[in-house]
């Protein structure tokens, strides 16, 4: 009995990590994600993937048939035709129709992605070399988010630490972004030095963080949980080491968290710090004006 158990455990380990051939579906495909947009994007991805697979099967079948059948070694005698107008028209028109079929749902999703109206919370994200700053612009809360120390120690050249022994290696931060479940969050994205990109795969979206300009995107997370992503635009030496972690909480837990943050901020605030914070808020207001003017 014990041996059966052990064999089973080994089998699970094999399927789960040791063998790429048996890797889980999530290791080889896009995530469905937890937002309306991410699900639509996943649906589009699968639609187009299957259309491509169907076309590939048809085209490759003809190629393979030709290679297998029309061989000189089998005594094939070459024909001498060099065009066929009917066939050429057919294989020009059919792809056009397929493309139209793809473009319609794609355009619909694109319009939805671009619709920023009705957001319930605005968060400003600023990329730095190599960390993120999150500002809850209407609530006076702001903090930096950097790679967790455990990962940072393990990722040094020849650190001697096995990355597999570090939980969420390279995907853990000190201060995660916290957002409420089921609320439309508008994210304003900018950067302070070079271009970065803010990307959480489970939310379906990424946008570039460009110094001097403000980009927008939105998400509404339907599920609570911890969602991880990474900077997706080469931003220098430590580009690979500025992850993004978003914790989605139920509204009441989020409210409690926000209060706690505000209280902690007030307690810590000396007069000097308050001035600094106030000037930062003026910056934010100016930035918002730019965003609205666009």
């Amino acid at each position, binding site marked *: 009995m014990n041996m059966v158990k052990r064999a089973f455990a080994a089998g699970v380990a094999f399927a789960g990590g040791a063998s790429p051939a048996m890797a889980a579906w999530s290791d080889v495909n896009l*995530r469905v994600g937890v937002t309306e947009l991410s699900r639509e994007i996943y649906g589009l991805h699968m639609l187009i993937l299957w259309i491509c697979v169907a076309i590939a099967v048809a085209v490759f079948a003809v190629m393979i048939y*030709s290679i297998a059948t029309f*061989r*000189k070694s089998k005594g094939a005698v070459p024909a001498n035709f060099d065009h066929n107008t009917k066939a050429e028209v057919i294989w020009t028109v059919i*792809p056009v129709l397929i*493309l139209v079929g793809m473009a319609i749902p794609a355009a619909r999703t694109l319009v939805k992605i671009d619709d920023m109206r009705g957001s319930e919370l605005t968060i400003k994200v600023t990329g730095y070399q190599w960390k993120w700053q999150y500002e809850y612009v209407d609530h006076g809360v702001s903090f930096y988010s950097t790679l967790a120390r455990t990962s940072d120690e393990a990722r040094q050249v020849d650190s001697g630490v096995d990355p597999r022994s570090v939980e969420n290696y390279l995907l853990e931060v000190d201060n995660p972004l916290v957002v409420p479940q089921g609320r439309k969050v508008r994210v304003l994205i900018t950067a302070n030095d070079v271009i970065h990109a803010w990307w959480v795969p489970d939310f379906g979206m990424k946008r*570039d963080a*460009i110094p001097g*300009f403000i980009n927008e995107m939105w998400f509404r997370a339907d599920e609570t949980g911890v969602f991880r992503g990474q900077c997706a635009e080469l931003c*220098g030496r430590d580009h690979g080491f500025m992850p993004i972690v978003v914790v989605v909480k139920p509204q009441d837990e989020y409210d409690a968290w926000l209060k706690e943050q505000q209280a902690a901020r007030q307690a810590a605030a000396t007069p000097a710090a308050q001035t600094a914070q106030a000037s930062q808020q003026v910056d934010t207001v100016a930035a918002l004006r730019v965003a609205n003017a666009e």
Partner: protein
Amino acid sequence: MSTTHTQAHGHAHEHHDDHGPAKGFKRWLTTTNHKDIGTMYLVFSLVMFLLGGAMALVIRAELFMPGMQLVDPGFFNTMTTVHALIMVFGAVMPATVGLANWMIPLQVGAPDMALPRMNNFSFWLLVAAFSLLILSLFMPGGGPAAGWTLYPPLVLQTGDALPLAIFAIHLAGASSIMGAINIIVTIMNMRAPGMTLLKMPLFVWTWLITAYLLIAVMPVFAGAVTMLLTDHFFGTTFFAAAGGGDPVLYQHIFWFFGHPEVYIMILPAFGIVSEIIPTFSRKPLFGYDAMVYATASIAFLSFIVWAHHMFTVGMPLAGQMFFMLSTMLIAVPTGVKVFNWTATMWRGSLTFEPPMLFALAFLFLFTIGGFSGLMMAIAPVDFQYHDTYFIVAHFHYVLVPGAVFAIMAGVYYWLPKWTGHMYDMKLANLHFWSSAIFVNVLFFPQHFLGLAGMPRRIPDYSTQFADWNMVSSIGAFGFGLSQLLFVYVIWKCARGGAKVSDEVWDGARVHGLEWTVPSPAPYHTFDEAPVVK
């Protein structure tokens, strides 16, 4: 390869009474002969291919396991950047220019290129350009590390390597423009009597269109990098918001060059494959006119799709819509080409010599790259794919088993004509099979990595990506080692081997003028223009 030409020269004396090449190093430095210059371009590109490949192996070695084992993250970025610059501007482009130099005069029945001295100059400029680029690796602050796209503001953080890299690009660009002018003038003015435009071989057609693309976009790229230079050294702010500029402006200019650039790499490959498939199917190319028009359509579309490389920069909805739809349109002429190649094989009489094997691998694997390209054209989904390993998989599929396999097919197709010897078939077949297998082991898993969420250009990754990275790295080393076989096959063939007939391939004579001249092709060919009926 110099032996080749000494032999070619000796052979030439049997047929002609003209003067042969000079002796020694001076011959190569001062040559104006299209065959010599073609050979130099090809040897240069092979050296660059191995050097760029070695850099790719540094990348794949670091990515073999999670954790940083071998290099500093900054040096890793230098490797990704310089690997790409060398492969694009040093390996693929010069290889197609080398083939053009050798084959266009032979295919249109011209005695040489139209502007032989400029031809020599454009080659040696390229050597200067890459000397500068390689020198930049040893500058204080390290080599260029902002990616081959050189996006500001990041690229402006480069140390002393920046001006070297930019001047290298200027020189390489000037070299390309000269090469392009030469090719256009040769094709327009030096075709044999009777060879109307619509009788030209497809390789000549695709190169004619490529040359126009080069002339149109290389100056744009030169302008973009010059603006980087003035932003860095002369206080301009083209790309800095603080001075009223815009970093995204650079991206628009870059990709206005960059998208036609990818067709500059693939159109000659289309041409090569369009030469090879008919020869080994023993049948004329299906839909010749459609092939020419499809090539021209692809070239035209390449100018109006550039912003699909930058869907995530935050364009207006109308812009995203336009670039999504125009990009999807490219699938139509590209599809026509794939269907026509397939129809060429239909009811043919196929044999599978190494050129045909590489052309067939191109046909299958380039098509896979085309499918992933179509997927990324869909803007909303590209918000997920963008800057992940999915795009890395895509462009390597169209560039390695796409452009590079087509170039290898071309080399295996024309090498016997150049040297007068048949190469070692067994080794060439082995080179094909190991390349074709390992290239898929190398790049196919990268689709999975990208979809699962691994960003590109990162030196280390979270442990969930470990398995496929290991598979990919094993493929990389297999593929890299396979290319040593390629070098050996060429070297051996240049030294000697079974003599080939003028026609070389069974029935090739009807497929092009190059198969009517002796093998090896004498130092001077078509002193009298052939008449094409």
